[in-house]
């Protein structure tokens, strides 16, 4: 299939300063393509060039096989529309009027809207779910609503390609997902090629067909995000040494670097929120014994915690148990997160009981009754905590008054 938008040895920049060089990309009909890279890497410059707002320094941008520079302004505007980072402040312009401005390349000398123009504007406003805002002034809208209206305006241009510069920045979670879902819909249902810059690696992974990774004037990688966004590439892309991207979880975890070490007995997701909490408060985290198919295992790995693992669906073996014992001996405290106990991981309780017997402090997030069943006589030596937050306060030494923090022995 012929690419809708294509660049050949494109170099973009200002004056004689090249910002990014050697850009070769092909965008087919209906693809959702994102540009990822740190601030100042040149994503916006590339997008401006693709949109024809900036002349290339070298190379050519082809729109449906024809060089961009050879296209007449009106026919370019009928094929390609933009949504820019800056939010315009057009004064006393209603949402409908603003969206209808997208008809510019179709209307006559004075910009009179025909019935068809009006219908297209309403259709676009409905599509982005902004039709109820139509009568309001654009300046009165929230950031998220403004972005949807600007998207509608681009859509009203009836384009085959939409170029968006950071369409999700300054938006709350709901609007961010809504905007991405609309873009997805445009590319799938209407066959519009969408090219955008993003800051959220997870959104790129979840929504985009292709990703272009830009760093320090070079293209780091180009391809499907599932292939391109490996943990190493993402770390290199953003020079991250305090955080780590997890391909499996599709998100960023902050790297664990705390000094005071605690050992967390976890499993089945009981550990993940606690790891993050401990990490935030500056504790070093060690955890086990976790099955390698456990969600806690992946989160702990992404955090860079010391993990004692066991093969999937195997009962915890003596090797792993010994390793966990050694590991927890160095820890300041041991925490029982209240993980579900079953036949495959019941030796984690045995681990806790042995530690208690050795005189180790074990903090427990279970109810007293449940703990009584599991720990039997040793339950008396547990320190019970009502919530993870109370536990961390206690560990941090802030909880001098134990009744206030909700922990008691």
């Amino acid at each position, binding site marked *: 299939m012929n690419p809708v938008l294509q660049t050949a040895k494109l170099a973009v920049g200002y004056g004689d300063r090249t910002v990014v060089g050697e850009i070769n990309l092909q965008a087919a009909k209906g693809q959702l393509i994102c540009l990822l890279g740190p601030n100042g890497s040149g994503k916006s410059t590339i997008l401006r060039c693709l949109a024809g707002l900036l002349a290339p320094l070298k190379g050519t941008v082809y729109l449906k096989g024809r060089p961009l520079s050879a296209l007449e302004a009106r026919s370019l505007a009928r094929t390609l529309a933009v949504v820019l980072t800056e939010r315009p402040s*057009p004064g006393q312009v209603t949402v409908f*009027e603003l969206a209808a401005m997208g008809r*510019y*390349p179709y209307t006559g*000398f004075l910009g009179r809207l025909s019935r068809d123009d009006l219908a297209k504007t309403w259709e676009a406003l409905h599509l982005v779910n902004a039709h109820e805002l139509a009568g309001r002034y654009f300046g009165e809208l929230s950031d998220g609503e403004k972005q949807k209206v600007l998207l509608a305006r681009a859509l009203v241009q009836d384009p085959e390609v939409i170029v968006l510069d950071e369409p999700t920045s300054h938006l709350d979670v709901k609007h961010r997902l809504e905007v991405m879902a609309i873009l997805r819909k445009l590319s799938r249902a209407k066959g519009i090629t969408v090219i955008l810059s993003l800051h959220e690696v997870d959104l790129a992974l979840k929504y985009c067909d292709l990703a272009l990774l830009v760093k320090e004037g070079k293209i780091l990688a180009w391809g499907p995000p599932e292939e391109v966004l490996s943990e190493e590439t993402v770390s290199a892309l953003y020079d991250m040494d305090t955080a780590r991207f997890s391909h499996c979880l599709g998100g960023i975890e902050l790297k664990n670097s705390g000094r005071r070490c605690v050992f967390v007995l976890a499993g089945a997701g009981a550990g993940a929120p606690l790891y993050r909490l401990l990490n935030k408060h500056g504790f070093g985290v060690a955890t086990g014994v976790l099955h390698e198919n456990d969600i806690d295992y992946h989160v702990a790995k992404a955090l860079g915690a010391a993990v004692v693992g066991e093969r999937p669906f195997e009962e915890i073996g003596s090797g792993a148990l010994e390793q966990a014992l050694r590991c927890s001996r160095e820890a300041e405290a041991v925490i029982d997160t209240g993980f579900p106990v079953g036949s495959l991981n019941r030796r984690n309780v045995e681990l806790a009981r042995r530690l208690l017997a050795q005189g180790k402090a074990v903090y427990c997030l279970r109810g007293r009754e449940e703990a009584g069943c599991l720990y039997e006589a040793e339950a008396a030596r547990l320190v019970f905590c009502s919530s993870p937050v109370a536990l961390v306060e206690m560990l941090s030494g802030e909880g001098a008054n134990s009744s206030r923090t909700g922990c008691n022995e």
Partner: protein
Amino acid sequence: MALPRRARSLLLLLLFGGLLFFFFVLSVVLGSVKIPPEELWETLFHQGGQVYQKVVWEIRLPRALAAAFGGAALATAGLLLQIFFRNPIVDPYVLGVSSGATLVVALLMLTGLVLGGGPVPPYILSAAALAGAAAVVGLIVAVANRVKNVVTLLVIGLMVGYLCSAGTSILIAFAEKEKLHGFVLWTLGSFSGFCWDETLVLGVGGAIFLGGAYFLCKPLNALLLGEDYAQSMGVKIKMLRVLIVLFSSGLAALVTAFAGPVAFIGLAGPHLARLALGTSDNRLLIPATMLVGGLIATACDLVARLAFSPVELPVSAVTAVFGAPLVISLLLRRGTSL
């Protein structure tokens, strides 16, 4: 709002037009020689009293027309530049047009170098002011295409203005006292003493530029979103820049040449029109701004002439005294941004 916005806007346009006509008639009939309204028609088109005929045809009518046209021209110039620079406190003189005119006029009136010290005939004064203004317009249009963004152009305009003002203040420092009074009065602006030739030049030139401005309403609407968006919709931005600067500065130059730098109308006229209409759609806003500008100028010129007759007040003072509170109250009542 009971009426749909569009119908309401058209009604307001009619209202502005009616008010303009009302003050225009008042301007013609009121003054040191009062003309009874029932004799106006007679005086205008048939044989009325000799004195009435002379006063109306040779003094009041050209002056009233000049005020109406001048006000429309200034307000429209202000509107164009406010959109262009996306800045609500821009006025038609921001690019240095009036400063250029003032400098050349100062050269003529204060030094006496050019004409050997005698009083300067009005038509030479107008020609000089026009030349000064045109020189600045030419310079600005020439750079309009080269600058990266419009703010640079704005700063260049301001700098040109400062340069010209510096020249003017040096001339003032060396000027003779008697000549200074006349010059200062000129810088305050006035529609007095318009003759038919001048009105004709202002009217024809103004009509051309005002028409040109109206034909820009579609790209001007696109420009409300900023230059990048406008360009992405197919606006030829470089051409538009030159046309906006040419039309707005041309309008300002024409008025300045004959009436001196009349202040405030160019700044407040567009705001009043926009706040009254509640829209930035230039298809409605440009005609409304023309009418409002003409209305302010006509009404204020009337007050300037009559309030302390026979002493005539500077029209800029009257426009500000009446206009500023009006703009402020409209802004506060609307509670919206410009």
